[in-house]
């Protein structure tokens, strides 16, 4: 199945795992295939793509001829071990996610727990939807509590997808169960300047390291690592990749 995702980041972003910053508002695009999921949990809800009114957020284009949809959005980059207390501090957990008004309010608090070392905030005061629609994280994203409020808050704030090196188990499972954010796993550190996500491989350029995108509903990162594509590939176009890499059965849903 053809799938392509691409995120281009600010070329001036420095490779620093220490103090993650947001990128300047250069539009970034993620493409997802519009095909239905194979090999995945059938009860997953497909959420319609969000339209953006004023701020360029994740706006879906028309499905292209290969069946993929494109999302353009600004990425918010965070570090490792972003725990659920940072994603949604406990004092806001009195909001019940299944209550629509409180769901929206949860969104307004997404990532407000990040320490003040994050100078650029995910949401400005008074905003209920973030201008960032893609969160790029490091290792162990979502660690800590089982609170489903965490992926819900991100989803309610308008986050379409999280691209992280790895996820904490419960957060990943909750993301998949709710369908609020699509949790993509990528081998690259968040400093990579260019990211092509093509089924089944994620190619990170210019280092040309590749990792694999795994089936939805398969939450074991170690199992997935065992079936990964080799770590380095010669530079290749996306088309070449699709032809040369034997894919594990990958299912993606459109957001």
């Amino acid at each position, binding site marked *: 199945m053809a799938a392509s995702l691409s995120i281009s980041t600010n070329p001036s972003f420095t490779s620093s795992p220490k103090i993650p910053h947001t990128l300047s508002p250069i539009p970034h695009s993620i493409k997802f295939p519009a095909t239905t999921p194979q090999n995945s949990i059938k009860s997953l809800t497909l959420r319609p793509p969000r339209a953006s009114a004023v701020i360029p957020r994740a706006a879906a284009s028309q499905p292209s001829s290969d069946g993929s949809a494109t999302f353009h959005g600004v990425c918010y980059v965070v570090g*490792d*071990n972003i725990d659920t207390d940072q994603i949604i501090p406990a004092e806001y957990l009195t909001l019940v996610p299944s209550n629509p008004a409180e769901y929206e309010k949860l969104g307004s608090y997404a990532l407000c727990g*990040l320490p003040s070392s994050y100078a650029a905030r995910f949401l400005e005061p008074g905003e209920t939807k973030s201008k960032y629609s893609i969160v790029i994280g490091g290792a162990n994203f979502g660690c*800590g509590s089982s609170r489903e409020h965490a992926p819900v808050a991100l989803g309610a704030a308008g986050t379409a997808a999280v691209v992280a090196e790895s996820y904490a*188990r419960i957060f990943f499972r*909750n993301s998949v169960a709710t369908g609020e954010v699509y949790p993509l796993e990528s081998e690259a550190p968040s400093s990579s300047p260019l990211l092509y996500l093509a089924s089944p491989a994620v190619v990170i350029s210019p280092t040309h390291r590749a990792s694999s995108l795994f089936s939805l509903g398969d939450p074991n990162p*170690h199992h997935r690592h065992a079936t990964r594509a080799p770590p380095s590939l010669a530079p290749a176009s996306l088309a070449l990749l699709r032809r040369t890499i034997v894919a594990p059965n990958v299912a993606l849903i459109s957001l």
Partner: protein
Amino acid sequence: MASSAIAPTSAPFINKKELGFSALSSSSPFSIQRCKRTTVSKKICSVMAPQQSERKPATTGSVKTGMTMTEKILARASEKPQLSPGENVWVNVDILMTHDVCGPGSIGIFKKEFGQDAKVWDREKIVIIPDHYIFTSDERANRNVDILRDFCTEQNIKYFYDIKDLSNFKANPDYKGVCHVALAQEGHCRPGEVLLGTDSHTCTAGAFGQFATGIGNTDAGFVLGTGKLLLKVPPTLRFIMDGEMSDYIMAKDLILQPLKQPPGPHLTSGTSWARVPLGYLPQFVPIIGEISVAGATYKAMEFVGTTVESLNMEERMTLCNMVVEAGGKNGLVPADTTTYKYLEDKTSVPYEPVYSDAQARYLSEYRFDISKLEPLVAKPHSPDNRALARECKDVKIDRVYIGSCTGGKTEDFMAAAKLFLASGKKVKVPTFLVPATQKVWLDIYTLPVPGSGGKTCSQIFEEAGCDTPASPSCGACLGGPKDTYARMNEPKASYLLAPQVCVSTTNRNFPGRMGHKEGQIYLASPYTAAASALTGYVTDPREFLQ
């Protein structure tokens, strides 16, 4: 000491390592190759053995492969003869627990998906325990308890530990307090069973030799309707702890060990290096091998050995409680006479313990000599930012918090009282005591502390100048509404520029965990917390206990 890289083989994946403690001190004599974040390979493919496919029983009789406790429990609960790690199975749930924070959301999903008039799968297998935001004037928090009550009435839920009179917890005969402690005290934890809860510390119940793990609202909503959940069988890490625990060591020290962060570049703001390829471990690794906050992700952690056998149930609960802080799916201590005695007067539901087979296959196995363990703390802002308590003796503190499912049980308060008694002095900083449940509160006020000539914990706490023990709940462990007792609301200490520092017996110290984002939390055992209260600095309990 050379690092022993473990190459992937097709053989069963047991890695035995003999582990001592000399690498504990900050000036390690070992020239262990430490991975820097920028150079380490991120691939963990060397850890896991090739996935085993399911074996069919032979026609002449079942030829079964040895299974671990977790595999056996899930096999029985999914009605399969044999399971291997990696398999996804539909598991019958014995107990589903929820509380005031996640219950309303789970109920909302249940009604939305199964219908407004739907009935739960089994009114006796659901335990609803308000405990998180109870003693507060926050209207939404209070409303959430009302939502639980309405649901329990409508569904005739058998176990609902309700509270109505917030001004006096004792006026609520059904109210218990912290869910994980209440589950144990009320006899809902039983060996061999499957217990799921909408709380990450549900893994605490693994102390009873059962499979217990945390789930989110959506999964809980599904379980409410069906009594089943799709679970992936985790591989098991085995931790063999032998040796006698010194008088100043508690289970909290045992579990903080595994979470040690490998030395290397890391920020004081707490970003820790999360992933250590297990094949990279040097030969002598202090305790559960530097597995860090993600080292046990998706894995079961099984605790065995003479040290574990010597622990009472509450200490075993502390051990299993923080399994989730290593990313673990579940923790387990095999059931034994200690377990059966504890359960004798608490449950009459029959149970059947399971034990790992001799030929069970483990992802990795670690051995520890506990006798050399020293008291530990987890420094801000991560549970794996481990350090020796004595190395932090210059850290001035502003407050001490003794409470939570991790460190607010009867045994925890007993330990703190013993230390205060041994010192005979008064605390130098505000010391907040929050018993986990009504029963714990009662124990604090009635049980005599050994060696005190008949004094109760409460008397000793009063003489030491601690705050009066508060109403039982989760309290400030996770911050909560702004008016929560002992919440860290002030960013700065009263003496100006430094942020507030708290030594706490709780389980997490991420930024803002107990309230203000700049608050600094040192996780510690009750002994260490009490010792620190007496000096006003992070203090090794040996100052008072030897």
